Structures are given as structure tokens and as C-alpha cells.
């Protein structure tokens, strides 16, 4: 804002001076310079008569750059549209069947049509929610530490580690939990182990988004609260967190979307099964990604159809979470 206001007197003063000199000398050159200074740069190429050979080259380059940028954007849209179209067109008809939302795949072979995905949807939701239940408190507390408490070396170290955690490949998270859960403790592969691996992937997303939101909370609010004699922890709980609430929700939803679409840890820790399973601590638990993975090598049409349909279901869930996150962000962001 400030820059535009300070800049605006410049051209107007310049043109006033030039017009004054133009009336006295009636020089065509001064008129040309004011014209060049006043025209926006994008329309510069429209006056080639006054620009030399070199300038035309510059204008061509400018146009070329514009074309390249547009082309890059359109190019980036191609895979998006293509993927959504492929999955949508190949998967939608099974989703229209009520059976898809009520039945499991129990007893249904690749050759047979029918069955649903409710077991996998349920598994994905259960694991996602459990993961969120563990990682959201840890993530929010870490963000509070970074913004409200952390100073000096420890805070730097925590922030660095959050960055590293952001970059941990999902398969490494899965391997780590495998090394801990199965080879060290000798436990069976169960749904909860998957959740632990997903927690590793979700924490950094929650920390970063919460941190961002807490930083947006005006300091005046905190100071007003302190001035009234409210202790720091109550200030954070009753003033800072409620102010940043919608932003935190957005972060959680986006994090949830990320972990629900994750497949790699599930390959190691959560093999697929065709029947409904709701016990996190016993037996295998099917999920949408493993259901897709199960059918991906199939050539028989019923199984292929189910693969696309479960991919579409997964995309819908993830997109729904993303859209919900953005809507919450749009309508409830911190007012500055």
C-alpha cells in the first residue's frame, strides 16, 4: 500500500513537468518520453515506430515469455484433468450402486461382479481418525511451544526436526514402525501400527499450519489478556487458540487428507483383507489404498472396475477434506 502511494506522485509530477516544457518548446521528443513513461509496460510493444530494432527484439522476447508461462500453466492442467477424467469415467458407475456403500468384498472373487467398499472406507476412516486423535494434540502443542514459548537453541532444533519430519518418506515411516512394533516388540501387524506410522506423517503438517495461524493472532490480544491478569496458559487456551481455531481446523483437515491417501506404510504394516474389520488392535484392517493395490494387477473386468471405483472413492474423500479445509479457511480466517 505504502509503495503505491509514494510512487503515484512520481509519474504525475513528471508528466506535469514535461507538459510544461512541451508548451514552451513544443518538442516532439519530450512528448514521446512522457508517452513512454506513462504507458504501462505491457503495451510497450504497440509503438514500434518509436522503438529501435533492439527494442522490437525485447518486445518479442516479452511476448514469448508470456506465451511460455501460459503454456506451462495449461500443460500442468493436462494431467490433473486427465487423471480426474480417467478415474471419474471409469469408476463412477459402481459408485452409483447402493451396494458399493453397504457391502464388503467378502467372498467375492475377481471374476464376480458386485460387493462394495464399505469395509475399506470404514478402515480408512477409522485409521485416519485415530491418527488425527494422536497427532493433533501433539502437533498443536508443538506449535504452541514454537510460537509462544520456544526461544533459543531448543526451539530452533524443534523447528528443524519438524522440517525433517516433513521430508521423511512414508515408506521410511512404515519401516521405522515395523522395526519398532514387529521386530523389537514382537507384536503382530495391526491397524494401530499403521496409525503410528501415519502419525509421523501427520504431525509436521499440523505443526506447520497451526504455527502459521498462531503467528497471525495479533499480539495486542495477548497483551490485553495479560494486562487483565490472565495467566499465560489461560490466555493461550481462551484467547489465542479460539482466535486461530478455523485455521487449525484447516490444517488438520489437510493433514488428514494427506494420511488417508497414503499407501506405502500400509504395504508394510497393514495388509488387505476382504471383510469388515473394526478392531485396531487385532487382525488385519482393509483400507481404500490397499484395496486399490490389491486389484491393480488384475485383468478381469469386474476387479478392474472395482479398482477404479475405489480410486474414485478415495479421491472423493481426499478432495472433500481438502475443499472442507479451504472453505473453513476462507470463512473463518484470523482478521487482521
Amino acid at each position, binding site marked *: 500500500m505504502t509503495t503505491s502511494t509514494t510512487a503515484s506522485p512520481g509519474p504525475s509530477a513528471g508528466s506535469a513537468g514535461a507538459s510544461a516544457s512541451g508548451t514552451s518548446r513544443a518538442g516532439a521528443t519530450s512528448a514521446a518520453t512522457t508517452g513512454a513513461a506513462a504507458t504501462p509496460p505491457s503495451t510497450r510493444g504497440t509503438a514500434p515506430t518509436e522503438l529501435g530494432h533492439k527494442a522490437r527484439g525485447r518486445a518479442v522476447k516479452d511476448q514469448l515469455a508470456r506465451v511460455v508461462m501460459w503454456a506451462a500453466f495449461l*500443460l500442468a492442467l493436462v494431467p490433473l484433468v486427465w487423471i480426474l477424467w480417467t478415474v471419474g469415467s471409469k469408476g463412477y458407475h459402481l459408485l452409483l450402486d447402493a451396494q458399493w456403500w453397504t457391502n464388503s468384498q467378502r467372498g467375492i472373487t475377481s471374476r464376480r461382479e458386485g460387493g462394495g467398499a464399505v469395509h475399506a472406507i470404514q478402515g480408512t476412516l477409522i485409521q485416519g481418525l485415530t491418527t488425527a486423535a494422536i497427532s493433533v494434540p501433539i502437533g498443536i502443542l508443538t506449535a504452541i511451544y514454537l*510460537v509462544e514459548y520456544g526461544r533459543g537453541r531448543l526451539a530452533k532444533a524443534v523447528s*528443524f526436526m519438524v522440517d525433517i519430519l516433513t521430508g521423511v518418506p512414508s*515408506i521410511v515411516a512404515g519401516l521405522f514402525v515395523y522395526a519398532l512394533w514387529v521386530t523389537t516388540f514382537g507384536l503382530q501387524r495391526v491397524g494401530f501400527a499403521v496409525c503410528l506410522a501415519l502419525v509421523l506423517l501427520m504431525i509436521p503438517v499440523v505443526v506447520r499450519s497451526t504455527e502459521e495461524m498462531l503467528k497471525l493472532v495479533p499480539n495486542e490480544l495477548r497483551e490485553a489478556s495479560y494486562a487483565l491478569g490472565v495467566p*499465560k496458559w489461560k490466555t493461550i487456551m481462551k484467547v489465542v487458540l479460539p482466535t486461530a481455531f478455523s485455521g487449525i481446523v484447516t490444517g488438520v483437515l489437510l493433514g488428514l487428507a494427506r494420511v488417508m491417501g497414503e499407501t506405502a506404510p500400509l504395504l508394510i504394516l497393514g495388509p488387505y483383507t476382504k471383510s469388515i474389520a473394526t478392531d485396531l488392535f487385532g487382525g488385519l484392517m482393509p483400507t481404500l489404498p490397499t484395496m486399490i493395490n490389491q486389484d491393480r494387477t488384475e485383468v478381469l473386468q469386474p476387479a478392474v472396475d472395482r479398482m477404479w471405483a475405489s480410486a474414485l472413492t478415495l479421491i472423493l474423500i481426499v478432495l472433500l477434506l481438502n475443499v472442507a479445509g479451504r472453505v473453513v479457511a476462507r470463512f473463518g480466517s484470523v482478521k487482521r
Partner: protein
Amino acid sequence: MSSVTGVSLADETPGPHGSAPLSGDGAGTGRLGDRLFGGAAKGAGLLVIALVTLVGVFLLWQAIPALARNDANFLTSREWSVDGAHPRFGIVELLWTTVTVSAIAMLIAVPVGVAVALFITQYAPAWLSRPAASLIDLLAAVPSIVYGIWGLRTFGPVFEPVQGFLQHTLGWIPLFTGAGISGGSTILFVGIVLAIMVLPIVTALSREVFAQTPVTHKEGALALGATRWEMIRTAVLPFGKPGIISASMLGLGRALGETIAVTIILSTLPDGAKWTWSLLNGGETFASRIANNAAEFDTPQKAGAFIAAGLVLFVLTFVVNAIARVVIERRKAFSE
């Protein structure tokens, strides 16, 4: 924060009014509630540090026995037999595939991603800028397993003639000699699919830096008569260079660790296959080797070999992410 990268440059910059980063250090009252809450926040921070350390330590601990029993050189051997009393395994082939796949992905994703970011921040009409950014972010929301099945079943067959052409015309270059692998499952093709997956990450972070270019720099360039492209070259790109570098590093970290899409698309080579430099060959990355053999983790020795591979992957991504972090930090030092 951009939901895509989990990293934000806003973390590093002062508040909207140039105010110093938040501090309420003296506000703790030392009462029980404050001490408990502060302790919990600090505890969460320490937990994050502990988690990352544990990942490294556990993987190392589990990998060492297997590495000690390994008869081949872990770093230079091409073999991979983890059974029996004399296991022989080495990572050189995995390293080659992982690095080339990621390099191809970066070669495509960085220029296109930066161009898209420039489009969104500098070229797009005001009404298009926001939706365009959301659309590109959507690419990041698509689960990677969906990229996998789309790549294998839809994009792959389309790519087949392109590969045939490359092989035909450039076959004399070792990188493009035919290796009898169908077009949809080669290193080159996986690199292209990974480029699509990495693109939104590169775009999201670059976009954020470009948007922060001081208006005075841009107006200064324009006032000196620069065309829009020259303004971008002289003002926006130099300012955004560290951002581009760290965005690329984050993208690279993602590409190195991507598991399921690579596992699905890339065809594995049989044991003892001849070594080639060809990009039109199959292979396995660290992550896909682990994922392909997830069912075989029945003895600690076998699991240990795969965990050792996972450890190398963890170290690789750790280094790449740390570089990204350092670049951002240095930028902060210069921009203030």
C-alpha cells in the same frame, strides 16, 4: 503456509506491520497451571525431536546386524540376495535408479513449476490467479497410488510411441538404448510421472517467494523501461532464487522417497540382469524395492537388509531437506 509443502516462508519473515516476531516470554506467572501447560508444550517439542532421532537410531540398530553379516560390499554391490547364511546385497543399482528417476523428475518439474508460479503471480489476470493456484494444489491432493494406476494403465500406453521414437532416433546414446521394456514402465516414464507429482510442491513454494518480491524492486525495474519479462528476470527471479532452490530440494526429497507410484509403474528386473545406463530400462528405487518385498519381512536378517536400504533413503532425504532448510535460513539472513 502452503498445505502442499508444509513449509512456509512466512515463518521467517517479520509480521505484517514489520513488528518483531511474537514474544510473551515474561508473561508466564510461574503458577501451577502455567508450569504444567508450558511443560506440556515443551514436552511435545521434545517428543518431535525424539521421534526423528528414534527413526534414525532404530533403523541403524536394526540394520547393523544384517550389514555385519553381509558378504558383499553394501555400497558397491549390485546383488540382492538376503536369504541364507551368507547374504549378499548392495545398493548401487537402487541408488542409480533412485537418483536418475529423481533427476528426470526435477529436470521437468523445476522449469515448469517455476514457470507456473510466475504465471500465477505475474501473468495471470486477477480473477484467474487464485483458482489457478488452487487447481495446481489439487494435483498434490491426488493420492500417489492413483498416479500409479493412472500412469500404468492410461498414460503409459500413450507414452509408448514416444519411447519408440526416442529409441529409434537417439538409440546410439547409451541413455536411450532399448532394453526390451515396454514404454509404460521405464525409468524415463516414471521420472515423468514423478515430475507431475512434484510440480505442485515446486510451484507452491516458488509462488510464495515470488509474491513477496518487494513492489519497489518491480516498479523500479519497470520505471527504468524494462519489459515485464525483463522485470521478472532482473527483479523477481534474483529475489526468488533461494526460494526456487529450497522448493526444488523439497521436491527432490519427495521424488526420492516416492514409493507406491514407482512400485506400480516401474518394471523390476530379474536377478542378474545386465547393467545398462539406459533410461529406457526397468529397475527399482530404494522405496520400491522395500515395497515390492514387504511380504518377505519374516526373519530379522531379511528385514534388516531392507531396513538398511530404508536407512540410506532416510539419510538421502535428510540431507536434501537440511540443504533446503539452510538455504531458507540464509535467505532470511539476507532479506532482513
